């Protein structure tokens, strides 16, 4: 397998950068795609926050940029909902799925396995370009008649199935959205297959399963989830397209009347879509966050100079979270009209996910306990990940209960909960991974001082946005509301919108420090050498950035992944490929 993709010394720009089969180039491509997408996603969230914080203000400048959506400087409700839909879609798919797995997974996994490349390099290239095409298709939705869809990233039918009659953006914009998601599913499936085959088949000599870094376990489990979840969404998307254009009725029942017109559909079920969507959608949360858990375990151990606390339990917890994730999708549907009996089962199963999650938290704290913490920026973001994971996870204990969901479902409490855990915690994982692996990827170190300021502002900002949003949720504020000012029961909740908006502006502004750091670091950052963090895993045994064939000679592994502070060893760490006799 490895012989078929030896890398010739010199290639043109197109083969080297655009259509490369080198996992490192593809990893960087995914990472850059996520960076572009996150800029879009953040800008959209700022527009959303602008409307919520200042619903009566007019913005003449924005009227010039969005002549349709902000006609006269006032945001149209349908434009607001398009932003909500596209922000969610952009972030969930093209940032939180793309960066952790496609980006860092692609770049680092083969290096940590001591492999020369992924198992199927051409397939890898294909999966990136299909994903890029999906991204372009999604962005196009903004520019067609009616604009982008307004039905939310969950695209519940009948709203998503009936075309422009139910709302602007539900015509061609919705078709492009479905097409984009279908392409994304296809790309992710190919990627997942590649990750699984690579992990199982390309490990170097001596790298037994018990010696794998937790990052590898996390990417492996994530790929397994992706392989099982994405096909279901793909099938759902195809059925939805058929309902829209081929006259089928999978999701649309009979007897509907829209705007005084009878709809010609019979016998479908809107709940069927919700089951298909959430069968994918809940595991998707873990697709977004498991790689962050892996990176956090790795980084905490490196910078605490201690072995990972409870390695086996951590591997078990990753698997348990990943697999339990397939049995809890119904907690998104307690009030959907689904059987109340199954709701009870889904509720109890949901709260059992708290067990492996708590185990991970205990073991992260255990890793810190008695360590000597080096508070690099990567370490700070990993610590921030632990904090946000705990906070966002605990509010899940509230929402996972059927009785409480009766009140809190579809309020901004839910928005605050999932933004803390799958938005902020996952982003902190991505930041931690970026500060940690940037030197390996680009051969330059990022600026630590700038990084620390970036971290402090982002941590405070994340809580300043989402703690008051929990409070609004407890007061019963519904989500996806363009303007709630006519509801008197929300009188105490509405003033919080401005606080949240300012916090969002400051947090987004702090990300300019990150961008500046990437630009500065990429051009002027000091050269790191092979192993700037004195880490043990195999990616640190080769040059930064690694040569096209990854390793000058095939590594052989003799040690577990996290041997730090080994008593009697010549250094305070034992690298995985150090000779066996290094360890006394």
């Amino acid at each position, binding site marked *: 397998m490895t012989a078929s993709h030896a890398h010739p010394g010199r290639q043109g720009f197109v083969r080297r950068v655009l259509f490369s089969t080198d996992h490192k180039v593809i990893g960087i491509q995914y990472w850059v795609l996520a960076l572009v997408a996150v800029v879009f996603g953040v800008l959209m969230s700022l527009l959303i926050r602008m409307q919520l914080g200042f619903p009566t203000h007019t913005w003449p400048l924005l009227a010039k940029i969005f002549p349709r959506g902000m006609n006269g400087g006032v945001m149209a409700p349908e434009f607001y909902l398009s932003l909500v839909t596209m922000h969610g879609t952009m972030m969930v798919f093209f940032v939180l799925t793309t960066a952790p797995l496609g980006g860092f997974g692609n770049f680092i996994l083969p290096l940590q396995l001591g492999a020369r490349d992924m198992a199927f390099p051409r397939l890898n290239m294909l999966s990136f370009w299909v994903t890029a095409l999906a991204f372009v298709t999604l962005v196009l939705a903004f520019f067609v008649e009616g604009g982008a869809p307004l039905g939310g990233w969950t695209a519940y039918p009948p709203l998503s199935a009936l075309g422009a009659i139910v709302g602007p953006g539900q015509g061609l914009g919705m078709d492009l959205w479905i097409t984009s998601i279908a392409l994304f599913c296809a790309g992710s499936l190919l990627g997942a297959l590649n990750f699984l085959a690579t992990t199982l088949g390309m490990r170097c000599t001596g790298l037994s399963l018990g010696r794998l870094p937790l990052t590898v376990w996390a990417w492996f489990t994530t790929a397994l989830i992706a392989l099982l979840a994405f096909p279901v969404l793909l099938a759902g998307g195809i059925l939805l397209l058929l309902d829209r254009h081929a006259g089928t009725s999978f999701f649309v029942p009979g007897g509907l009347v829209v705007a*005084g017109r009878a709809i010609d559909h019979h016998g479908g079920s809107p709940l069927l879509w919700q089951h298909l969507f959430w069968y994918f959608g809940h595991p998707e949360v873990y697709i977004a966050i498991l790689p962050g858990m892996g990176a956090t375990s790795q980084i905490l151990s490196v910078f605490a100079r201690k072995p990972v606390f409870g390695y086996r339990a951590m591997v078990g917890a990753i698997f348990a979270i990943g697999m339990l994730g397939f049995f809890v999708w119904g907690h998104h549907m307690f009030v959907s*009209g689904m059987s109340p009996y199954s709701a009870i089962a889904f509720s109890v199963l949901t709260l059992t996910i708290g067990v492996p999650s708590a185990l991970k938290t205990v073991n992260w704290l255990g890793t810190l306990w008695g360590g000597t913490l080096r508070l690099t920026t990567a370490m700070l973001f990993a610590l921030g990940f632990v904090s946000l994971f705990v906070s966002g996870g605990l509010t899940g204990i509230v929402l996972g209960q059927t009785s409480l969901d009766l009140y809190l479902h579809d309020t901004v409490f839910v928005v605050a909960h999932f933004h803390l855990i799958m938005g902020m915690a996952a982003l902190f994982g991505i930041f931690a991974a970026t500060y940690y692996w940037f030197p390996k990827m680009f051969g330059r170190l990022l600026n630590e001082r700038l990084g620390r300021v970036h971290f402090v502002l982002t*941590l405070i900002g994340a809580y300043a946005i989402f703690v008051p949003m929990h409070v609004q949720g407890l007061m019963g504020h519904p989500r996806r509301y363009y303007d709630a000012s006519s509801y008197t029961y929300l009188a105490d909740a509405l003033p919080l919108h401005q606080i949240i908006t300012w916090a969002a502006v400051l947090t987004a502004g702090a990300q300019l420090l990150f961008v500046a750091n990437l630009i500065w670091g990429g051009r002027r950052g000091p050269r790191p050498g092979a192993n700037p963090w004195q880490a043990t895993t195999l990616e640190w045994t080769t040059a930064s950035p690694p040569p096209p064939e990854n390793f000058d000679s095939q590594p052989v592994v003799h040690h577990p992944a996290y041997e730090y502070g080994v008593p009697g060893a010549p250094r305070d760490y034992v690298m995985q490929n150090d000779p066996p006799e290094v360890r006394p």
Partner: protein
Amino acid sequence: MGLLLALILWAITVASVLWLHSAGGHMPPSISDAARAVDSQLFLTLAVIGVAFVLAQGLLGWFIWRYRAGGIRQARYVHGHDSLELGAAVVVGAAFITLAVLGQRVWVQLHLTVPDPQALVVEVTGEQFAWNVRYAGPDGVFGRTDIDHIDPGTNPLGIRDDDPAGRDDIVSINTMAVPVGRTIEVQLGSKDVLHSFFIPALRIKQDTVPGLRIPLRFRATQTGTFEVPCAELCGLGHYRMKGTLRVLEPAEFESWLAEQKAE
């Protein structure tokens, strides 16, 4: 940096606990026994996760401060602690599963008990962007509907004029009045897309699904006027799909009904 981060984490922890604690006083009033039961389960849950939250963030901050690098101290070379890990899993598991079971009580009362035969049945049908509220009238029977009979102005539900049961039906747009102290069974449906019938003061919501007729029961113990926002994204007017629940004394309710009939 270690001390700074520890202080930031502790400050965030204290601020979050105080802020969420204060939110309880700003929730809409609870106007049924079930709503009060939801509240007490909510506060119990918030207390339990509050303890876990303070414990975890507190320890995190303390470890960051206590174990920051410096001096010649060597990191402990330990790989785990089986009984500590197992113990944590058991304690957390027991706490969360207990909450999960307790958290079913209101749910079971709402959905899995025998309906009250004396309940007043009210039909609520969502459409973009209004709630159609129908009462069966003195005969207690809803007239049959047919989409061919729909007239957006005069007959939004399409009640058939050839069905005698429909003649005394009363339809109100966006306002649902109910007598205090009596069990109400709302039968929820939708004409077009999904909506969700949310009554914050009763702590309940239920999606309305075209093609399904879903019952939702409540018994308000307090009179007053309460808002009914739509809680499932239903199109560009979602935010202004606002209903009103009026809980009235029985006599007042009867006269309200008579007024509606006269209109």
